[in-house]
């Protein structure tokens, strides 16, 4: 097949349109650079979101042949392989804005406890940056996208001067907050990228609670509306739809010169040229591209002389506990939708004086699903049937509380992705094989995560729904993949410097979750945005200084 080669040399080509790709496009065009973005899908029109389709209307609509936007890419288009008995659920959205269309929106700043963890416990390497390096960028991001939250900061949860007002907690959240406080555990106001008032031209939240279906008014940050549309308006961004990137192309010296991609539907091969390549295709897809970019200068994939690319895949380990608080049994049902997801958060506390633990790092806790929800799946665990069962479910419905601890998974060299042995996709490009296991440290942390959630529920005198304390969930389901192209001070032990720039190839930047040195217990997107902003400030300066 003929290869379509574009003769134009762009300043920067960005692979991917999610949080990090959108940030790169917005910031670089703002600085006057001419940018090409390759997006593996197309725009998801907000007018087609099913945000206000009631649960019982869903089957009717499907029976009538209608479909909500198909956010999640199917495994036929984007296959990957896992070893038998070692599943990893990889969730990806190909299309404008990527996963930010339907993300959880929890926006927590990393603390020095996270950046410097390895300095204290010696496990693998610390980040090459500290909170003070990223703090101005966290401020920038908060101001740009709008993050609501409180000022009840902690050593493990740095604050912000720019939070929008936090929403009032729901009844169940209040009761958990009180119970946790009684046993010395702080539950603070949550921090979430949801607009509790109009912000930078974006509409305020109308508290419909359907964020997971996409927001029909754009009241929470999504990369498409908040970053890519303004970048397009600058006339300096061009986006190519349905461009599935295979490889970064290099010259004889091993420097990046462009990108090879395939049209998602026609499968036609194309190449484009650029002075700088920004990789932002989400952790595992980005890493796959790097590993597939082999040449005589880069026999293990581009920028991989350290052999760390693909290694140290760090997801998070989490669990879910449910209970019913006595004060709310049989209470009048309220509209508990709020801003979707919990209005409170339990920051990490296990590092504090006087607490002993037999594992490294820590966990926080989220509480989505407290109160009257749009289903009652938990009722499957209420024993019995008949009229008594119905009464038992109705009584408990307003009293539901939900606890979801999230714990850091340590970086391990053999939790990794590889290419080559797992076959190829429909475009003939080698697919990723994902090998990921929880280890002893995660099992021990899980024990304390269960104990902490159970202790809060017991103090709240809640009826606890049965749970399996050995259940660790299927890896990948937190949708927080990090670490497979980590940054670090030592080029022998890391692939990127603190500006997400490859040690080996200075005109390649990897700005998504792959760049993280550790996972921490926190949701990554706010930090991805701050890192991508900082990296592209540096990139633009280096280009102007003609060092790239």
């Amino acid at each position, binding site marked *: 097949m003929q290869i379509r080669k574009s003769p134009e040399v762009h300043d920067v080509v960005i692979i991917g349109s999610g949080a990090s790709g959108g940030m790169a496009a917005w910031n670089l065009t703002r600085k006057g650079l001419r940018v090409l973005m390759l997006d593996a899908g197309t725009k998801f029109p907000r007018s087609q979101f099913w945000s206000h389709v009631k649960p019982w209307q869903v089957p009717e609509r499907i*029976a009538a042949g209608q479909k909500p936007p198909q956010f999640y890419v199917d495994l036929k288009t984007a296959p990957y392989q896992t070893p038998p008995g070692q599943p990893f659920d990889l969730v990806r959205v190909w299309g404008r804005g990527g996963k930010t269309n339907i993300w959880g929106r929890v926006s927590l700043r990393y603390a020095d406890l996270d950046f410097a963890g390895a300095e204290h416990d010696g496990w693998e390497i610390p980040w090459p940056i500290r909170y003070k390096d990223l703090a101005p960028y966290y401020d920038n991001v908060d101001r740009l996208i709008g993050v609501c939250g409180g000022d009840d900061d902690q050593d493990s949860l740095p604050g912000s001067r720019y939070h929008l007002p936090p929403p009032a*907690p729901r009844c169940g959240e209040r009761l958990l907050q009180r119970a946790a406080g009684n046993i010395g555990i702080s539950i603070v106001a949550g921090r979430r990228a949801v607009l509790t008032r109009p912000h930078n031209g974006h509409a305020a939240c109308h508290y419909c609670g359907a964020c997971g279906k996409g927001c029909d008014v754009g009241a929470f940050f999504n990369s498409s509306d908040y970053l890519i549309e303004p970048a397009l308006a600058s006339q300096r961004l061009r986006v190519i739809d349905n461009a599935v990137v295979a490889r970064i192309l290099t010259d004889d010296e091993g420097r990046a010169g462009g990108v090879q991609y395939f049209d998602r539907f026609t499968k036609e091969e194309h190449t484009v040229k650029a002075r700088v390549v920004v990789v932002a295709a989400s952790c595992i897809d980005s890493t796959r591209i790097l590993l597939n970019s082999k040449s005589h200068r880069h026999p293990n994939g581009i920028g991989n002389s350290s052999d760390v690319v693909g290694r140290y895949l760090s997801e998070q380990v989490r669990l879910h506990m449910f209970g019913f608080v006595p004060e709310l049994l049989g209470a009048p049902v309220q509209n508990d939708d709020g*801003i979707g997801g919990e209005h409170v958060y339990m920051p990490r506390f296990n590092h504090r004086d006087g607490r002993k633990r037999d594992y490294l790092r820590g966990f926080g806790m989220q509480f989505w699903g407290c109160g009257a929800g749009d289903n009652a799946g938990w009722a499957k665990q209420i024993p019995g049937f008949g009229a008594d069962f119905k009464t038992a479910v109705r009584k408990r419905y307003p009293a539901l509380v939900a606890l979801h601890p999230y714990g850091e998974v340590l970086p391990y060299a053999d939790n990794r992705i590889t290419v080559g042995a797992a076959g190829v996709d429909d475009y003939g490009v080698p697919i990723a094989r994902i090998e990921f296991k929880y280890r002893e440290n995660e099992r021990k942390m899980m024990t304390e995560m269960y104990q902490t959630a159970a202790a809060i529920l017991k103090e709240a005198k809640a009826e606890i729904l049965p749970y399996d304390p050995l259940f660790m969930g299927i890896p990948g389901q937190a949708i927080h993949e990090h670490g497979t192209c980590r940054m670090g001070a030592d080029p022998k032990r890391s692939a990127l410097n603190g500006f997400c720039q490859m040690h080996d190839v200075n005109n390649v930047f990897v700005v998504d979750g792959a760049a993280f040195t550790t996972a921490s217990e926190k949701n990554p997107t706010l930090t991805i945005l701050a890192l991508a902003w900082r990296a592209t400030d540096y990139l633009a300066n280096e280009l102007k200084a003609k060092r790239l």
Partner: protein
Amino acid sequence: MNPTRRDVLVTIAAIAAPPAEAQASFLTAAELVSLTVLVDTIIPRTDTPGAADAGVPAYIDRRLAANAQLAERFRAGLKAVGADFPALSEAQRTELLQARQDDPFFQLVKSMTVDGYYTSKEGLAGELGWHGNTYLTEFKGCTHPEHQR
């Protein structure tokens, strides 16, 4: 109050006569009768609608039509419950199900009944009182003085 046999047949007639385009369906008419009685024994009509009133049999049938593996397992389970199940008295049905509460098929039917009923308008809005997914200008949260710290 449990549905009489006539109620069941009326429900079946409604299910069996879908609008113009034939809907994807898996279960036979006889199986639907059994299923209807079964789901109504799990969530009966009381002062609010029951599972059959809320269209749960059709909901389950649609899910089965979309999942061949599940459908065959379901059919075998339904067969084991017995063709005479709908003809049993309420007391007999209750006794029969009480003895089978740990049975995987009962768990499956209960699970699908819970999913279908508590996402139906009758079950979610009517029975539970959900009134969310709307447009609000403010969210007041918990206003109970006794719940504040």
